[in-house]
C-alpha cells in the first residue's frame, strides 16, 4: 500500500513539474504587466490585444499553414518510402533505411545548417519553399518508421494472393495497403504536425522574414521580453490542438 502510494506520488510529481511551466505560461496570459514574467493583477486585455494584433496572429496562421502542408507532404513521402522499403528489395535499401535513423537522431542544428548551405549554394531564396522542404525532410522519417512498423505486423501472403489474382501494384496499394496502414499514417501525420509547429532551430536557419512563422517571431521577441499576448496566443493554440486531438481520438474510436 505504501509502495503504491509512493509510486503514485512520484508520477504525480513528474507530471506536475512537466506541467508547471505550461500552467505558468497560461496564467501569465492573464497578467496585467507589460512583460510576461511577473504577475500583476488579472486582465483579459491580452486576448483582445491578440485578436487585434494581426502581426502575431498572422505568424500563427503561417505556422499552421506550414505545419499542415509539411505534415501532409511528409505523410505522402514517408508512406511511399515505407511501402517501397517493405515491398521491394533493391540495391541501397540498407542505406535508405539507416539514413532515416540518422535523420531522426541528428541534432536539428546540423540539419539546419546543412540545408541552409545547400539552399544558398543553389541560389534558392529563403522563405516558404525552403521551410516547407526542410520541415518535410526532418518529419518524413517518423512517418516512414510508424507505417513500416504497421506493415511488418501483417501477413505478406495477402499481397501475394492479390498479386496472383491479377491485381496490379496500384490496385494493391489502393485496396489493401492503404486501408491497412491508415491508423499509422494518421499517427505519422500528427507526429509531423507536432514536430513542425514547434520547431525553432531548423526554421531559424532556413526561414526568412518573407514568411515569418510563429517560433521565429517569438524568438525575435525574446531579447526584448515576451509580452503576455504571446502567452495568450499559445494558450489559445494549446486548447485548440488539445480539443482537436481529443475529437479525432474519439472519432477514430467510433469508427473502430
Amino acid at each position: 500500500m505504501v509502495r503504491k502510494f509512493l509510486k503514485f506520488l512520484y508520477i504525480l510529481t513528474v507530471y506536475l513539474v512537466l506541467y508547471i511551466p505550461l500552467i505558468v505560461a497560461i496564467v501569465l496570459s492573464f497578467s496585467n504587466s507589460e512583460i510576461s514574467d511577473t504577475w500583476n493583477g488579472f486582465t483579459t486585455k491580452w486576448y483582445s490585444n491578440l485578436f487585434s494584433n494581426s502581426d502575431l496572429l498572422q505568424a500563427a496562421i503561417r505556422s499552421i499553414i506550414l505545419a499542415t502542408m509539411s505534415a501532409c507532404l511528409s505523410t505522402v513521402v514517408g508512406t511511399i518510402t515505407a511501402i517501397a522499403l517493405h515491398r521491394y528489395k533493391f540495391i541501397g535499401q540498407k542505406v535508405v533505411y539507416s539514413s532515416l535513423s540518422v535523420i531522426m537522431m541528428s541534432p536539428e542544428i546540423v540539419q539546419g545548417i546543412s540545408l541552409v548551405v545547400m539552399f544558398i549554394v543553389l541560389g534558392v531564396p529563403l522563405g516558404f519553399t525552403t521551410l516547407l522542404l526542410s520541415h518535410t525532410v526532418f518529419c518524413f522519417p517518423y512517418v516512414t518508421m510508424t507505417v513500416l512498423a504497421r506493415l511488418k505486423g501483417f501477413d505478406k501472403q495477402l499481397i501475394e494472393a492479390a498479386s496472383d489474382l491479377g491485381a496490379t501494384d496500384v490496385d494493391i496499394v489502393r485496396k489493401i495497403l492503404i486501408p491497412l496502414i491508415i491508423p499509422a499514417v494518421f499517427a505519422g501525420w500528427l507526429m509531423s504536425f507536432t514536430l513542425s509547429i514547434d520547431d525553432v532551430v531548423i526554421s531559424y536557419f532556413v526561414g526568412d522574414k518573407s514568411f515569418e512563422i510563429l517560433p521565429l517571431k517569438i524568438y525575435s521577441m525574446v531579447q526584448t521580453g515576451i509580452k503576455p499576448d504571446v502567452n495568450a496566443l499559445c494558450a489559445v493554440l494549446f486548447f485548440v490542438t488539445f480539443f482537436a486531438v481529443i475529437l479525432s481520438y474519439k472519432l477514430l474510436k467510433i469508427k473502430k
Partner: protein
Amino acid sequence: MHKTPDSFCRTAVLYFIFIWLGVMVFAPNLLVLLASFLTKDAEWYLRLPLNLQNYVALTDTALLEIIVKSFSLSIATTVFCLLVGYPFTCIIARISKDYRILFLMLIIVPFWTNSLVRNYALISILSKDGFINTILLKIGLIKSPLVLLNTNFAVFVGMCYTLLPFMILPLYAVLEKIDRSVIEAARDLGAGSAEVFFKITIPLSFSGIVAGCIMVFLPALTLFYVSDILGGADISVLGTIIRNKFTVDKDWPIGAAISVSLTVFMLLLLKLYFKSGNTVEEERQLW
C-alpha cells in the same frame, strides 16, 4: 520475394526516393563536409584553397572551454533525465492498458505550446522574485533570494525540462514490451527485487536506454534557444557557437567543421545504438 507486375511503378518510386534523399539529405551534408575544408570568404562565404585549418581551430582554448562546458551540461542533463525518467517509465509501462496511452499522451501534450514560451515561463519560476525564491523565503530556508536565473543551473533546468519526454518515449517502447512472466519466473526462482532489476529489467531495456540517452544528449549540446533564454549572455552550449559562426561571424568553414565533428560523434553513438540490438523503428512505434 514478390514478382512485380508493373515494374514501372517500382522504378518510379525508387527513383523518387533516391532523388529525394540525395538532394535533401546527402547533398547538404556533403556540402557541409566540403565547406569544412574550405577557406572563409567575405563575399561568397567560401573559397579555395582546401585546408585543415578549420579543424585545427577547434583546439583553440576558448572554444575548448565551451566544448567542455557544453559536454558537462549535456552529461548532467542526460543523467538527470535517465534517473528521473527510468523509474517513471517503469511505473507507467505497468499501468493497465486502457490508461497507459492516456498517461503517455500527457507527456506529449506540453509540446503543443511553443517551446520558446514554455522556456520563457521558466524565467518567472527561477527569477529573483520568482516562485522558487518566494517559497524558499517564506518557509525560511534562505535569508536572501538565490541567483538562479542566467546561470548554468538555469540552462540545466531548461534542458531537462525540454528533453525529459525524449528520454521517456524510447524507454517506454522497450519497457512496455518486457514480458511480465519473465520477471515472475525470476521471482519464483528466488531472485530479489534488486536482482530482477539489474539482471532482467535493465538488460532487456538497454536499447531503449541508449536511444533515450542519444536523444537527450545531442539536443542538449545544441539547443541554443534554451541557453539564450535562461543562460544570459554567457555562452553555455555548443549550438550557440555553431549558430554564431553561421549567422553573426559569417565564418562558414569553422561552423561547418564543428558541425561535422558533431555528426561524426553522432554516428559513433548510433553505432553503439545499433550494437545494443534494436532498430530505431521499434522505439518509434508508439508515435
